[in-house]
């Protein structure tokens, strides 16, 4: 009986350590992937690629170029490619000098409806109201 109790304690403590570990790993110090759906579906912004991978600091973009609130910008009427080409929003850096220009490599950020559906299917983002997410297609 005593042995069984010890075993249970051991199992539970392992579970507890594992669970806390997961929580710590989930607690990123950046905003994760942001998927814009306006004006067109869909554009991805990866916080990981910009901070962890190339080491940009939060305050370089927040809050002057981008509000802290995710997707705040897409409620703005001029959040479109023309603004970006005139060095606003993403175009502040993506102007061809600091990083690749917004006039090139369209599908580097544009993941399209297919990319959006894929992320919803994987549970990475919540679908918007009225979205019809088809089952996996073979359009590759």
């Amino acid at each position, binding site marked *: 009986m005593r042995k069984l109790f010890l075993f249970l304690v051991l199992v539970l403590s392992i579970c507890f350590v594992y669970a806390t570990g997961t929580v710590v790993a989930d607690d990123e110090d950046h905003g994760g992937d942001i998927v814009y759906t306006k004006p*067109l579906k869909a554009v991805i912004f990866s916080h990981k690629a910009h901070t962890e991978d190339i080491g940009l600091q939060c305050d370089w973009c927040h809050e002057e170029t981008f509000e802290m609130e995710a997707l705040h910008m897409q409620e703005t009427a001029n959040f479109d490619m023309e603004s970006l*080409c005139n060095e606003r929003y993403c175009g502040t850096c993506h102007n061809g000098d600091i990083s690749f220009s917004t006039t090139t*490599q*369209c*599908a580097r950020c544009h993941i*399209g409806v*297919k990319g959006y559906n894929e992320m919803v299917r994987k549970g990475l983002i919540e679908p918007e109201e009225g979205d019809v997410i088809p089952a996996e297609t073979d*359009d*590759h």
Partner: protein
Amino acid sequence: MKFPKMDFEGLKKESPALISSQERRNFLKMGLAITGVYAGGQILSVVSRVNEVYASTTEFLKKYPYKPHYSMVVRQGLCIDCEQCISACKETNNVPDYGYRTRILTKVVTDAIGRQREFIPTLCNHCNEPPCTRACPTKATYKNKVNGIVMMESKKCIGCKMCVLACPYEARYFNDEKRAIDKCNFCYDTRISKGEKLTACSYICPTGARIFGDISNPDNVVYKMVHQIEKQVWVLRPESGSKPNVFYMKATRSSPWELRRQADAR
């Protein structure tokens, strides 16, 4: 299976030198070019001339035999898979949810430098030598003699789906409501014959990835795009020999002329 016995020994000996120019011309008229003579002059080697490039204007005009010769340029790098073309097409041409007249394929190269994703819009290529019309037993699908659009006459269609098998571009689906095959017809019945200049998809395309026009007219944007010196232009599945009329090229938004949507340019 038994093959008929051929009397090779009794055949007349031939060599490239012995073939008269008249005979060569006859071969060329058949769409074949003589490339050599094998087996001691008993076998003549010929290749098809379908993929030949044209040098003179007269020959070149024969390449675009329709007037207007409707055609589309797909500027592949500009497609962002917003799928507005698909929605516009479905709305305009009453395409059901299970069907499609145009699709967007995705190509992902995960170990590429920079951009790792590419979207490729596909639709009926309105081929000059359409394999589908040859396969159709009832002539329900045919080439429009004036503008070269590959059309469907639903009431003649018996639903045998031979055209679906024959099409190299997977551009056809069976429409349950029409009880017939349905496909892209460059919006001929819904827009072009009513005086519109663009198909629904090229009109709505926000990036100008789909450019529609008359390739037989040197003043038309499609002609100009396909005949640029600097651009590589290709077609899908050229090996099918179908001479498609949908051309593909790479593009970016970088030059001002290319930045424009086709609908705004008019």
